């Protein structure tokens, strides 16, 4: 990988540089389009498809059966109602419990008959009832309260650490961008939102901020060390920091995405829908977007936010002027 470390060297010295900060309006436009698509398509498709854990659903219990094979039940249910997402459990030693998404009365009867046939029992031995959500409103409300508390604290901690609230603001906007796009994937593909997906979503929240802090720390270092008489404008310093951490960003995201990709592949290819696929899909997309947004949204936005400050404007004007005059005299 000599070429890759050469790539790193050139990025470090500034010999090779990608203009992340300068093309900010292009990245803003892409972000706005993506967010609009995520929100728009999700709304058009009728919002998120929440799983049985959030909405409750139907429950069937086959009592006094000798056949306890769980796959029978799953097949019987999906043959009648393909989108029922059955969860099958054996209760005690002689009952099979099947929980599905909320079914209509007609579907209820169909499924009951199908189950009776599959397990060779009379329909009377299959009882049907409704169950409430295991992920109740109380879990959601405490989780949201926790999140808001966390975000406020994180913004304050970052503002203190970086000694500017503008970094907090840029990081939070990038985070919002990541969360909307990740959630949008579920809305657009109409994947079921399960507790596992929500947990994956929370992981993204931490990862996205984490990634932004790493890059911002380099920006802080570069812009701080510039002092008063630098050869770089503020925006150029920010851009250099992003370039200098680019190899790290690439390596980290590859290393973080490899295990998640493995779970996603195994989960989706070998097992089909399930906890593994749900959590790894949210993670895969979220991590990708999280790394992207640090480079393309958070950093340019921060430079943008600071660019209106008097000191920074004065300094970059002076620099650009001296460069111009240098070019003229040459």
């Amino acid at each position: 990988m000599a070429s890759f470390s050469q790539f790193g060297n050139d990025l470090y010295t500034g010999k090779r540089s990608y203009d992340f900060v300068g093309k900010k309006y292009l990245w803003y436009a892409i972000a706005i389009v993506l967010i609009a698509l995520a929100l728009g398509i999700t709304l058009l498709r009728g919002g998120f498809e929440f799983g049985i854990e959030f909405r409750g659903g139907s429950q069937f219990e086959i009592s006094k059966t000798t056949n306890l094979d769980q796959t029978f039940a799953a097949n019987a249910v999906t043959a009648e109602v393909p989108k029922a997402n059955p969860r099958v459990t054996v209760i005690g030693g002689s009952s099979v419990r099947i929980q599905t998404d909320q079914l209509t009365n007609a579907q209820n009867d169909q499924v009951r008959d199908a189950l009776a046939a599959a397990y060779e029992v009379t329909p009377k031995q299959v009882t049907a009832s409704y169950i409430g959500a295991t992920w109740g409103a109380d879990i959601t409300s405490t989780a949201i309260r926790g999140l808001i508390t966390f975000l406020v604290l994180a913004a304050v901690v970052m503002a203190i650490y970086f000694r500017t609230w503008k970094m907090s603001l840029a990081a939070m906007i990038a985070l919002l961008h990541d969360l909307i796009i990740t959630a949008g994937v579920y809305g657009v593909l109409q994947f079921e939102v399960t507790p596992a997906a929500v947990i994956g979503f929370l992981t993204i929240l931490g990862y996205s901020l984490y990634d932004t802090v790493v890059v911002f720390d380099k920006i802080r270092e570069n812009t701080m060390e510039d002092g008063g008489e630098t050869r770089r404008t503020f925006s150029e310093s920010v851009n250099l920091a992003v370039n200098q951490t680019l190899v790290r960003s690439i390596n980290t995201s590859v290393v973080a995405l490899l295990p998640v990709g493995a779970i996603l592949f195994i989960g989706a290819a070998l097992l089909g829908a399930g906890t593994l696929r749900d959590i790894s899909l949210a993670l895969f997309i979220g991590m990708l977007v999280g790394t992207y947004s640090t480079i393309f949204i958070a950093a340019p936005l921060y430079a943008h936010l600071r660019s209106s400050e008097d000191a920074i404007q004065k300094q970059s004007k002076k620099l650009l002027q001296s460069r111009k005059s240098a070019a003229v005299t040459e």
Partner: protein
Amino acid sequence: MAARSTPVKKAWRSLTWLMVIIVGLIAINGGGALLAGWNWVPKLALDLIGGTQIILAPKLESGQSVSADQLNQAVSIIRQRIDAAGVSESEINTQGSSNVVVSLPGIPDQATIDRIESSAKLEFRAVIQTDAAAVSNVGETPSPSPSPGASDSPAPSTSPEPAPSISPSNASDPAWVTPALQKQFDDFNCADVEKANTNVAPADKPLITCEINGTLTDALPDYKYILGPVEVSGERIKDATNGLVANSQGVSTNQWGVNIVFDAEGAKQFGEVTTRLYGLTGARHQFAIVLDGQVISAPTTNAVITDGKPQITGSFTQETSKTLADQLKFGALPIGFLVQSKESITATLGTTQLLSGLLAGAIGLMLVIGYSLLQYRTLGLVTVASLVVAFSITYLIVTILSWREGYRLSLAGVAGLIVAIGITADSFIVYFERIRDELRDGRVLVSAVEAGWKRALRTIFASDAVNFLAAIVLFLLAVGNVRGFALTLGLTTIVDVLVVTMFTHPMMQLLANTEFFGGGHRFSGLDPKALGAVYRGRAQFRAPAASVGSGKAASASKEAARRQTIAERKAAELAAGKPGTSSQRSKGKDS
């Protein structure tokens, strides 16, 4: 490279401490395995291993019905009670129109079931009449209770006062005792109190009930009471904790009690009650603490309590006092429940999903190792070794938590741990890239490791602090699965910091002194030639980007100076004084 004693010594010291931590964890686990029947494998959650399904049916009087609101409230309270006992990721939901289903991993004991099903409706009522003899609470509370004045000192026995036929003027008024009530009281048998429906008497009516002493303190008989209407109810409780009871000298006794903190309204009500009772004599000097219709204790009022912080004493053990404190804190269930059925259930996901998850983890780990070696050559082995150390520590802690604190590993938890591979590896990548940057600036490896470490550590701490903050906040505020997630996140973050400071960095310090790495071998991943350090002539040193204007920094704007830490200033100065390293650098190049 000449060995530098200080970093090397420090490195060995760190590695020794790390060994101490690992051996300590193994010892805790081993001790648990020998003495307490632990296993070396963490316990699995409901989705992977199954557990027990408990169906709770509401205790309803005829004609009474339960609303959806009450049922949801009950689910929420039961969830908090279960969460308070550990992170088990249990599932609680409603079934049909009146039942609550609780699914717990493993086989719950009677104490767990008690914790779930009892309503925990607490009432403070004034005592109007009792058959408690002079010996009454002596055995129960050997020392005066510390809560200012509320003590269980022997209640002077009084003969029931004749009931005047006027309407009662306050809650302690003997006028509540009508002849009919007196008869009921005389006929009441304490053996029936368990069978009676809890909270039978409405809050504004007197209650006949008993203090059951039979089960624990066998020397004491059960006492019957006629109690006035409810004066302070459990809803007014703001917080409840359990703790050892201190006596009047402030010395802790070995008796457990529950400390209650009332809200403002409750404190006011309680102050009024104690003010009134303080002036009364006999049985009416006492107030009764009633839980689910039974008296837990009936202390006398030795002072007026206005701070709203009474203490409940009784025949508590540490465990029962904790249970009661949790129950009071999360509030009473709107209705009492009875266990209708208790059956084992199998896992919904089962071992195929777990094995697939582990397989995916293994594949992911192999890919990470392959990529690290490709990117960092031999240095990648440090990553691999660090990940192995991180995995071992995490595994040991998860196992200990699972046996000690009731933590259960769910499939989402396994996925979370696999994801942590990436976040942990990022610390190493940040660190390695910093070392490479320092090498590019022309440092020799030994000083590049130290300088790179200082900068990397700052970044690692800052970014891990964000994750840790998320973990703490969510663990404290959230319930259910989110809490399990928070624990996993916090755990992996701590392990990350531990491993990078106590393993990865010391390893780098040691390796920097070897010929292979220090000499910048082609496959070491730290070859200065490949890192571009060589392209500069011997005499001309490109001012390292990090130290651009480092000399100027001192004279720079106040703002910049204020933002610079001492460590950074030193590092900048160090970087500026680089020419001294030129001979070593060229030596590295030649070898």
